[in-house]
């Protein structure tokens, strides 16, 4: 593995920059953390100081302890930490998600965090950042993952809603509480009926609104009084609510999961839901290759998911590449802890 010290090296606590004495998305509490986005597997509790992108301020504060010291940096602006030039660039994963660019003695490293290339009305679109070292996520780094266009999936979801409404059923659409839920919400056809939210989702919606993102009107399920008629309604909830007592109130439902994992039938069937929509906030195989080409690094470090396959493929195609971790991310890992913690609310 080519060394990029003192700019960046993998440690058991995450990626560490010796020159600036800080971590990027540390996996344990550290003194100084640069955080790519507000999902709990990237933004961990317990650090003393956090640096993140300005558009994600409300989301990060919602999830973090107030005792910590926060610094928010607009996309594209530079600050210096111990002689390392640090800047944050849009990653397109969710509101405020950032790629971290580090520059030191002429070497540039970019840590993508989670990212996607497709359009999303709720966040700024990914931009390529040229670098010597690209640390990319590879959650869906196999050629079986090929996302349909966001517009076609949005139409599929609305068609499903319309059909359920006509059959007198209530739609329950599952997505991660923060990020996925709001982007789903933005694609709904509000002429079809009322939209309700699970508690964890509603919190995210409000943080998005406070950040200036326009979203359709929502009604928090927990604040609904009496016994309303749920038929024809759309409920957005976290996956962990599936099959729970919380669901009983809705009567006849049609359930659907919105996730990149839904591309494969086995994952779809294991969830035991009526529908699976292929919607992801991560790069698929093709866009991963596009991103690597556009950032044009000498070296790629693959992290999360199919790291070994991506590294081997890139090595065979003219780039130096290494797999950072082999354990890898699996279905449901993403934001799972946040869901579990918040589904009770």
């Amino acid at each position, binding site marked *: 593995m080519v060394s990029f010290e003192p700019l960046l090296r993998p440690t058991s606590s995450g990626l560490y920059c010796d020159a600036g004495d800080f971590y990027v998305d540390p996996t344990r509490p550290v003194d100084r953390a640069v955080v790519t986005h507000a999902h709990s597997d990237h933004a961990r509790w317990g650090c003393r100081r956090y640096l993140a992108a300005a558009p994600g301020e409300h989301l990060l504060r919602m999830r973090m302890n107030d005792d910590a010291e926060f610094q928010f940096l607009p996309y594209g602006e530079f600050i210096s930490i111990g002689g390392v030039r640090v800047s944050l660039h849009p990653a397109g994963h969710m509101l405020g998600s950032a790629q971290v660019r580090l520059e030191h003695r002429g070497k540039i490293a970019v840590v993508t965090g989670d990212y996607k290339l497709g359009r999303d009305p709720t966040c700024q679109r990914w931009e390529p950042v040229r670098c010597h070292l690209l640390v990319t996520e590879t959650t869906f780094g196999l050629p079986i993952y090929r996302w349909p266009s966001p517009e076609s999936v949005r139409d599929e979801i609305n068609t499903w809603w319309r059909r359920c409404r006509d059959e007198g059923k209530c739609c329950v659409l599952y997505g991660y509480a923060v990020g996925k839920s709001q982007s789903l919400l933005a694609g709904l056809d509000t002429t079809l009926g009322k939209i309700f939210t699970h508690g964890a989702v509603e919190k995210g919606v409000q943080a998005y609104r406070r950040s200036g993102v326009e979203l359709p009107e929502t009604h928090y399920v927990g604040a609904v009084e009496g016994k309303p008629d749920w038929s024809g309604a759309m409920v957005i909830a976290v996956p962990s609510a599936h099959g729970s007592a919380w669901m009983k109130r809705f009567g006849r439902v049609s359930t659907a999961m919105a996730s990149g994992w839904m591309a*494969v039938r086995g994952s779809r069937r294991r969830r035991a839901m009526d529908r699976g929509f292929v919607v992801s906030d991560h790069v698929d195989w093709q866009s991963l290759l596009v991103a690597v080409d556009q950032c044009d690094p000498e070296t790629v470090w693959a992290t999360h998911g199919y790291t070994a396959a991506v590294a081997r493929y890139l090595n065979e195609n003219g780039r130096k590449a290494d797999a950072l971790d082999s354990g890898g991310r699996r279905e449901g890992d993403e934001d799972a802890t946040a869901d579990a913690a918040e589904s009770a609310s």
Partner: protein
Amino acid sequence: MIRFAELYNELDSTTKTNEKIAAMVRYFAGAEHSDAAWATYFLSGNKLRRLVPTSLLRVWAAEQAEIPQWLFEESYQAVGDLAETFSLVVPPGKTTTDDSLTHWVEHRLTPLRLMSDVEQHAAMLQIWNETPARLRLVVMKLITGAFRVGVSKRLVTRAIASHAEIPADVISHRLMGDFDPSAESFASLIDPEIQDTVPSKPYPFCLAHPIDNEKGPEVLGDASEYWAEWKWDGIRGQLIRRSAQIFLWSRGEELMENRWPEIESAAESLPDGTVIDGEILAAIPGGAVLPFAQLQRRIGRKKVGKKLLAEVPVVFHAFDVMEHHGEDVRSLRFVERRARLDEVLGSIDHPHLKATELIDGESWDAWADIRTTSRQRNAEGLMLKRKDAPYDVGRVRGTWWKWKVAPYTIDAVLIYAQKGHGRRSGLFTDYTFALWDDGQLVPFAKAYSGLDDQEIRKVDQFVRQNTNDSFGPVRSVTPTLVMELAFEGLQRSGRHKSGVATRFPRIVRWRHDKRPQDANTLADLLELLPED
């Protein structure tokens, strides 16, 4: 074809029986007879003979996707389903045609078999170019002969019955045996008028239900209302003698031609218009039944050599008669059918075609005692059958019961794991277990079933975190997990590293309370071997 792909998708995405039947009924109502015939053919588990070697398909798919071969294989490992891997990896087609299912099968798919490699290659590229992912999944399932969609033949039968408004048992009988997927045969399948006269046509088999070993047979009521037979471990068969011809059907509704010559020759003495139900067993004529492992030597042989015929003779143990002198006698009481069976077999007195023994006893206690000798006789336990019941079809409960002896059990250590297929694709669900022998763990059985979904997820996670080595798709893990395995039989075997082969191994429970060193030894297992 698009409608058939939609049907596949509907069947695939629900676990509810009623929704599956409704989807099929909708399909049949809207389909031409020719398409309905092919749909019936595929849904009831038939497949096209291999059209294109999958090894070539894999190479072409990798080329189309512009990926190296290893990455295609890696993708297949992740998906766990070859046809689905083709549908995902190859870029989606640019055009779509809506030719009928019949057109696809008869003009696009079947001709592939007779083409050269070069022609097949061109034809496949064209097929891929004309199919979006969902449609391609079904097309590739048909091409690779892996069309399974979680409907039993019984469900298909019910759907056709509901569509045609004809009783399900009539459809079931008409569907027995080889179904010719033509518009004419579908028309006669759903015709309320037609009489069935095909000589080879078998009857649906009567099925037995298990007796819970904890509760015992007392729940069945009075023992005097039952007869007992041995529950043999062989191959269920239906022997038909009609129009001077002989047909021997398996329970999977396959014609077993030329595979059991002793039985076929014995059947030649049967009077015309006879259909009997029984079990094919490896057995010395007039003597003992041999272990299943002996029969296994003949299973799968299309032609049987003289040596094997001499070493492993077979006997048809008949236990029921469905047709007697051309008359359907299934509605008669068992005592009457058994009398007719004895009469017809008594008249031919052939060593390879025998009425199975009725076991004296007539009280649950007496039968319980006799049952303990099952293993010595190479039987799995007892069958209990109501004397006054007709020969039932479908899933009628209460006429035939199987009262099996308790399985063998042993505690073993999980050492290898492999990803499963279908619903469990992508998860490590196929395990190899080992026992201790002189400080070493020796693999002795593979087991796939017995854990619930939550346990499977836990084992899956364990495997991912404790892999020491990979051999292709197989992961070798740190020996940690102990599971109790159950199995029905045990045989010495030269082909197994452990020296023994187990029959129907499965997981009974996860022994969280045991450490790997507490698992059983190979010597413990060998002690269970029946004495030679």
